[in-house]
């Protein structure tokens, strides 16, 4: 049976914060895959969108990593750049798309989960921190970690605020 994409049944109110992956579990416990329909199976179009965005994000990140190599005691500019850029973009996309009715069913998995999720990386940061520690560069490691978190948070904050301010004006 097909529900219109924009229709939400009354009990499907997300009860927790929004995330890039999907609206949180509904009060009934069923997963809302973002299509507005309570759907225990995963939407294959959503997966395809994530796959495409993920491919693009990975390609961009690897390309930049190869273009800006660094050794273990230098600032990891490639990782830092993609992470802050990705955070900026995600704040923009999610804020812009989450408050738009009807819910944009494929743009969020494509741009949020896919592109920004794959463009940015958490694990690489951890390895880079360990490598800095290997060389006893604890100041560098601390600076890198703190800068990443602060700039990342600020990036999300700014792009989210910007979207809302523009929306409030129009």
């Amino acid at each position, binding site marked *: 049976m097909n529900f219109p994409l924009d229709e939400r049944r009354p009990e499907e109110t997300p009860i927790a914060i929004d995330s890039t992956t999907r609206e949180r579990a509904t009060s009934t416990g069923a997963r809302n895959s973002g299509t507005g329909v309570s759907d225990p199976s995963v939407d294959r179009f959503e997966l395809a969108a994530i*796959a495409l965005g993920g491919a693009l*994000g990975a390609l961009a990140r690897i390309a930049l990593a190869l273009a800006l190599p660094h050794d273990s005691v230098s600032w990891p500019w490639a990782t830092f750049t993609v992470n802050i850029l990705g955070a900026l*973009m995600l*704040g923009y996309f999610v804020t812009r798309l989450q408050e738009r009715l009807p819910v944009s069913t494929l743009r969020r998995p494509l741009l949020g989960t896919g592109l920004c999720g794959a463009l940015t*990386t958490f694990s690489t940061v*951890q*390895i880079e*921190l360990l490598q800095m520690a290997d060389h006893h560069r604890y100041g560098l490691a601390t600076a890198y970690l703190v800068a990443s978190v602060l700039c990342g948070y600020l990036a999300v904050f700014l792009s989210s605020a910007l979207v809302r301010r523009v929306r409030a004006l129009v």
Partner: protein
Amino acid sequence: MSAPAWIGVAIVGSLGSIARFLLDGAVSSRTSSSFPFGTLAVNASGAFVLGLFSGLALSGEAFLLAGSATIGSYTTFSTWMLETHRLGEDGQFLRGLANVLVSVIFGIGAAALGRALGGAL
């Protein structure tokens, strides 16, 4: 880097993202807390595996593909930051701070553990 390697990057980028989506969803649908356990699970597990690959001394293109391209796409910094920000907006500042601290502690710990394991193998 060769064309097949780039195609490999695209493919594992897709797979890593899908894996992140599925695990995050599986964990999130089982927790009622606003704390982003899904992303934490993804990031911690990814840090562990990347540490493992690092400890195994995968180098060059092998590490680039299996490590950076795959696990790098699997883990996410942007979602981590977004969720922290949204917690703050909801007035849950402590939870947001916890999200940062716990993720870092678990992330570094997992990476170190994985690296030690990889080195021992």
